[in-house]
C-alpha cells in the first residue's frame, strides 16, 4: 500500500493507517478530565512562590527573610545564599552557560528570581513574598542590544571570571569570499535593516512543577510542564546531583508548549529544593506575569540584510549580519554546534550563487531564552529575513514579487539540493506549490482590484500627506515562500549538551493483538496519541483504537530529547514506523512457523502475512501475537513474544515548505490593518492525519498574525519589562484572525520511512513575512519599503509618515 491510498476502516470506523481520524485524546479534554500540572494535588503538598527582582540590573546588598519566616503558614524561605551552600545557586543552561537559580551577587533582569517561599497554600506563599525585604543598589542596565558592545557599557556577567564585556559569541556560515565576489559584480545591491522583535510563546497554561523527594529512598519524582522529559531527567541529575536512576519526570497533559516548555526554569529547581528542605511535595506554578517576564522569550534578532541580483531580478547572493540579543544568561535551547540555531538556512528556497552570514550574540539585562515560540531553531528569523529581502529587491526593481520568486525558486530537478550554507534539502517542487497558492488566491485578480482601489484613493485626493479620503481603504498583498529544516537531528551533526538527538521507541504487541507504543517525545496538543497510533496501524494493520500511545513519563518510556523544532513526526514518527516494521519482520517468522512454510513463501497485506499463491492461507497480526506468546516452536535463536524497540537516528533533516499569501486591508485614516484573507499551501509530505495537520497550520497562522501585528516584549530605558500581562502583551483573538484558506501539495521526503516531513511550526515560520509583506505592499503609495513588527496601528500610522519606530524600546 502506498501512503496515498485511502486506508481501510476499522470496526470503530477509524482509518487503519493514514487519513482523517478524530482524536483519541479528546474524550478526556472535552469532559474537563484533562490532567494538567496544576490539577495534580498530592497529600501534604506545599506551595511555592518566587520573589522577583523589580530592577533590571542591581547589586543585592541584603535580603531579610525573618518576617516571612515568621508567617504562621510558611514552611521555608530559600535565598541564593542558602543555595550557594548547596552548590545549587547556579544551574547549567542548554547553551553551555550558567543561569542563576536565585540571584546571589546581582540581579540581571526585571523579574529575575531572588527568593523562594514554601507555604501551606498558594495565597499564603504569595503573602509571605511581601514580607521579604531586599535592599538593592541599582546599576546602569544594558537595554539596547545595539549598545551592549560599546566600550564602557556596564558588564552584566561579572560572575564569569575575567569577563570585561557583554559579548557571547561570533559565528558565521557560508562562504564570505564567494559572497563578496558576487556582490562586487552584481548589477543591483539592496540593503535593509530589520528587527525580529522579542516575542513570547505564552501558552495558555503557564509553566510549573511539583517536586516530591522521598527522603527514605532518595527518589525524586517531578511532575513538570515539559516538552522534553528525558532531557530534564538528565539535567536534574547533573544540576542537583541526584543519581539519574532515582529521578522520574512525569509530564502530564500540557496546555500548549510552543517552545516555552523546553528548558528548565529556576522554579523547577526550587520546587526540588523546597521538597528536600521540607520533606513534602512542593508545587510551583508561575502566574502569567512571571511567564511573560522570566521564561523563554523568542527572536530578538537585529538583522542587516543585503541582496545582490541582476537587473532582471535573478538573485545572485545574500549577505547577512545579525546582532542576537540573548538576555542576561545564554539560555537558548538548540543543538550545541549551532549558536544561532538553524539561522543559516537564510538562503531560503532560492537558487543563488553565494551566501554568508555573521551572527554576534550579546548579553543584555533581559530575560534569558531565545529559541522558543515554534521557531524551528531560528528558521523563523531566517525565513523572515530572506522573504523581506526578496520583497525589497522587487520594490527596487519595480517587479512583481511573485515574478521575482518564480524566477529564483529552486527547480525540482535540483533536489536533493545542497544549499550555499551546507544544508541538503531533501525534496521539493517549489514552483508548483507557489502556483497552487497564487491560483487559490486569485492573484492576478487581487492585483487588479488593488490597482483599482489605489486609483480610487488617488482620485479621491489621497496622498501621503492626506491619506484619509472618503473612507477609501488600501489593499495589500503579501507573499512568502519558506523552506524549513526540521527533525533535529542526525547525531553526527547535532546534540544538546552532548546528548545526541536520536529518539527511542518501543512497541509491545500483547497476546490478544492490542498494542502499546512508548515514545520519548511529548505532545502539547499536537495529537500524538492519535497520530502515532495511526503510524503503527499503517505499518501493522492493527486498528488505531487498539493501540495505546504512552509518553510523558521517563520511567515508562525510552530515552529521547523531546518535542520541539517540529521533530516529533520526522524523528519519533520514523522510529514508530521502524519499530513497527521490526515487529512485522518478527511476525513473519512466527507466521511461517505456524504455517509450516518458509518466510520467503509469505507476503504481507495490511494486517496479515499470507501464503503467496494461496491467499486464503495466512495469519493475522492478532493471531500471530497470540502464537508468539504461546507454545509454538520457533526457529532456533528466535525468541518469543512480539515486542521490539529502536533508536532512530535520522540521516538528514526533513524540509517542509510552503507558499503563503496574505491579503490585508489598510485604513489609511487610522493605520489599522485587518487581515482579510490568508492562503496557506503547505507541502509537508504525506499527511498522516490531515485534520490534525490542518489544525497545526491554523494555529501557526494565528501566531504569525499575532507576531506581525500585535505581539512584542519591549523595555523602557531602565530595563522594565513592558509586556508583563495580556493587557500589554496582545495576542490575537477570533476577531483578528480570518478564516484560513488552506491548500496542499505532496512531495515525500526520500529518506523518511513514511515520507513525512513535519508541520508543527511551518505556519509560525512562514506566515509573519507574508503579513508584513502585505502591510508594506498596502503602504506602497506612501513609499514605504520596510517597517518593523509589530505593525500596530500606531506603527503603521508612523510608517505612513516616513518614521516607523524601533519597536523593541519604549519611546518616552
Amino acid at each position, binding site marked *: 500500500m502506498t501512503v496515498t491510498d485511502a486506508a481501510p476502516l476499522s470496526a470503530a470506523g477509524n482509518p487503519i493507517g493514514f487519513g482523517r481520524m478524530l482524536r483519541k485524546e479528546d474524550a478526556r479534554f*472535552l*469532559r474537563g478530565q484533562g490532567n494538567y500540572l496544576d490539577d495534580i494535588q498530592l497529600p501534604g503538598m506545599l506551595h511555592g512562590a518566587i520573589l522577583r527582582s523589580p530592577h533590571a540590573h542591581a547589586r543585592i546588598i541584603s535580603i531579610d527573610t525573618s518576617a516571612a519566616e515568621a508567617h504562621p503558614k510558611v514552611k521555608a524561605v530559600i535565598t541564593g545564599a542558602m543555595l550557594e551552600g548547596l552548590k545549587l545557586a547556579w544551574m547549567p543552561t542548554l547553551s553551555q552557560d550558567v543561569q542563576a537559580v536565585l540571584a546571589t551577587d546581582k540581579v540581571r533582569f526585571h523579574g529575575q528570581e531572588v527568593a523562594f517561599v514554601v507555604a501551606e497554600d498558594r495565597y499564603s506563599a504569595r503573602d509571605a513574598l511581601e514580607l521579604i525585604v531586599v535592599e538593592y543598589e541599582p546599576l546602569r542596565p544594558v537595554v539596547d542590544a545595539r549598545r551592549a558592545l560599546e566600550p564602557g557599557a556596564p558588564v552584566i556577567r561579572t560572575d564569569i571570571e575575567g569577563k570585561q564585556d557583554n559579548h557571547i559569541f561570533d559565528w558565521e556560515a557560508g562562504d564570505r569570499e564567494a559572497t563578496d565576489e558576487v556582490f562586487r559584480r552584481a548589477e543591483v545591491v539592496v540593503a535593509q535593516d530589520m528587527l525580529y522583535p522579542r516575542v513570547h510563546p505564552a501558552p495558555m497554561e503557564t509553566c510549573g512543577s511539583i517536586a516530591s523527594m522521598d527522603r527514605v529512598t532518595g527518589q525524586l519524582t517531578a511532575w513538570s510542564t515539559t516538552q522534553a522529559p528525558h532531557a530534564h531527567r538528565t539535567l536534574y541529575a547533573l544540576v542537583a546531583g541526584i543519581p539519574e536512576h532515582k529521578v522520574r519526570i512525569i509530564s502530564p497533559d*500540557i496546555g500548549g508548549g510552543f517552545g516555552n516548555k523546553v528548558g528548565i526554569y529556576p522554579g523547577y529547581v526550587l520546587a526540588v529544593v523546597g521538597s528536600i528542605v521540607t520533606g513534602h511535595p512542593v508545587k510551583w506554578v508561575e502566574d502569567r506575569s512571571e511567564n511573560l517576564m522570566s521564561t523563554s522569550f523568542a527572536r530578538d534578532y537585529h538583522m542587516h540584510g543585503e541582496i545582490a541580483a541582476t537587473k532582471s531580478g535573478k538573485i545572485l547572493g545574500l549577505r547577512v549580519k545579525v546582532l542576537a540579543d540573548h538576555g542576561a544568561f545564554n539560555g537558548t535551547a538548540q543543538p550545541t554546534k549551532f549558536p544561532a540555531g538553524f539561522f543559516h538556512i537564510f538562503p531560503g528556497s532560492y537558487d543563488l550563487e553565494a551566501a554568508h552570514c555573521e551572527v554576534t550574540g550579546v548579553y543584555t539585562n533581559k530575560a534569558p531564552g531565545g529559541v522558543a515560540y515554534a521557531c524551528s531553531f531560528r528558521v523563523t528569523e531566517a525565513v523572515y529575513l530572506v522573504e523581506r529581502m526578496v520583497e525589497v529587491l522587487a520594490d527596487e526593481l519595480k517587479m512583481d514579487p511573485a515574478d521575482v520568486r518564480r524566477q529564483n525558486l529552486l527547480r525540482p530537478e535540483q533536489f536533493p539540493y545542497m544549499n550555499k550554507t551546507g544544508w541538503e534539502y531533501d525534496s521539493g517542487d517549489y514552483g508548483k506549490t507557489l502556483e497552487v497558492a497564487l491560483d487559490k488566491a486569485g492573484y492576478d485578480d487581487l492585483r487588479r482590484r488593488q490597482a483599482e482601489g489605489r486609483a480610487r484613493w488617488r482620485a479621491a485626493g489621497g496622498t501621503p500627506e492626506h491619506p484619509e479620503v472618503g473612507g477609501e481603504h488600501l489593499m495589500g498583498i503579501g507573499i512568502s515562500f519558506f523552506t524549513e529544516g526540521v527533525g533535529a537531528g542526525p547525531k553526527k551533526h547535532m546534540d544538546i549538551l552532548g546528548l545526541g538527538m536520536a529518539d527511542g521507541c518501543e512497541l509491545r504487541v500483547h497476546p490478544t493483538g492490542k498494542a502499546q507504543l512508548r515514545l520519548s517525545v511529548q505532545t502539547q496538543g499536537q495529537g500524538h496519541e492519535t497520530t502515532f497510533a495511526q503510524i503503527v496501524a499503517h505499518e501493522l494493520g492493527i486498528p488505531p483504537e487498539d493501540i495505546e500511545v504512552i509518553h510523558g513519563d521517563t520511567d515508562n518510556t525510552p530515552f529521547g530529547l523531546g518535542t520541539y523544532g517540529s521533530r516529533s513526526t520526522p524523528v519519533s514518527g520514523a522510529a514508530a514506523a521502524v519499530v513497527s516494521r521490526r515487529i512485522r519482520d518478527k511476525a513473519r517468522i512466527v507466521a511461517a512457523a505456524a504455517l509450516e512454510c518458509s518466510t520467503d513463501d509469505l507476503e504481507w497485506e495490511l494486517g496479515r502475512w499470507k501464503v503467496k499463491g494461496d491467499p486464503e492461507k495466512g495469519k493475522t497480526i492478532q493471531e500471530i501475537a497470540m502464537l508468539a506468546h504461546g507454545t509454538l516452536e520457533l526457529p532456533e535463536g528466535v525468541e518469543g513474544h512480539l515486542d521490539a524497540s529502536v533508536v532512530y537516528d535520522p540521516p538528514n533533516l526533513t524540509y517542509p515548505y510552503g507558499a503563503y499569501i496574505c491579503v490585508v486591508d489598510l485604513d489609511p485614516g487610522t493605520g489599522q490593518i485587518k487581515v482579510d484573507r490568508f492562503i496557506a499551501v503547505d507541502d509537508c509530505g504525506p499527511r498522516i492525519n490531515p485534520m490534525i495537520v490542518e489544525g497545526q497550520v*491554523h*494555529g501557526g497562522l494565528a501566531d504569525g498574525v499575532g507576531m506581525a501585528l500585535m505581539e512584542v516584549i519591549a523595555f523602557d530605558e531602565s530595563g522594565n519589562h513592558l509586556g508583563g500581562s495580556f493587557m500589554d502583551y496582545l495576542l490575537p*483573538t477570533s476577531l483578528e484572525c480570518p478564516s484560513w484558506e488552506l491548500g496542499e501539495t505532496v512531495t515525500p521526503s526520500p529518506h523518511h520511512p513514511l515520507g513525512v516531513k513535519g508541520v508543527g511550526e511551518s505556519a509560525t515560520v512562514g506566515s509573519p513575512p507574508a503579513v508584513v509583506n502585505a502591510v508594506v505592499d498596502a503602504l506602497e503609495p506612501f513609499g514605504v519599503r520596510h517597517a518593523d513588527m509589530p505593525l500596530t496601528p500606531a506603527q503603521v500610522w508612523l510608517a505612513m509618515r516616513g518614521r516607523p519606530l524601533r519597536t523593541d524600546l519604549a519611546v518616552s
Partner: protein
Amino acid sequence: MQVTMRVNGEEVSRDVEPRLLLVHFVRERLGLTGTHWGCDTSNCGTCVLWMDGEPVKSCTVLAAMADGRDIRTVEGLEKGTQLDPVQEGFMREHGLQCGFCTPGMMMTARWLLDHNPDPSEHEIREAISGQICRCTGYENIVRAIRWAAEHPAKEEVAS
C-alpha cells in the same frame, strides 16, 4: 466564612477565606479541575463558567460572591453519558488541541447557542472574542460551534 451554592445541580457548602477566587474554589476545593486558570488580568477566558446562567470569568469572581448562586462548569455539560452537542462539535471539527482553553470556550458556546441557536460565523467570533486560544487559530472552534448549532440535542429540538 461559609459559602453555599449549587454546582452542576448539587448543593455544596464549604468554609472559605473571603478572598478565595471562585476559580480556585471550584478547582481546589471541589476538585472540578476542568475550569482552568491562565492569566492575572481577566483576559484569557480559560476560567469561564456559568453563574446564574451567565458566563463569567471565574478568576474575577470571589467564591463569596457566588454564595447562593447556581454554578455550571464544563463537568456539567454532559447529560448522563450524552455529550452536549458543543462537546461533540469540538471533537468532530477538531476544535481543540492542547485542550486548555476548551472548557471555557465550550461554556461560552453553549450559552451562545442557548440564546442564538443559529449564529453566523461573525456572531460566533464575537462571542468567543474575550477568550484566547493559542493552538487552533480559532477556525475549528468556529466550525465546532456551527456543528453544534446544526446538530442540536433532541430535547432542544423538542422544546
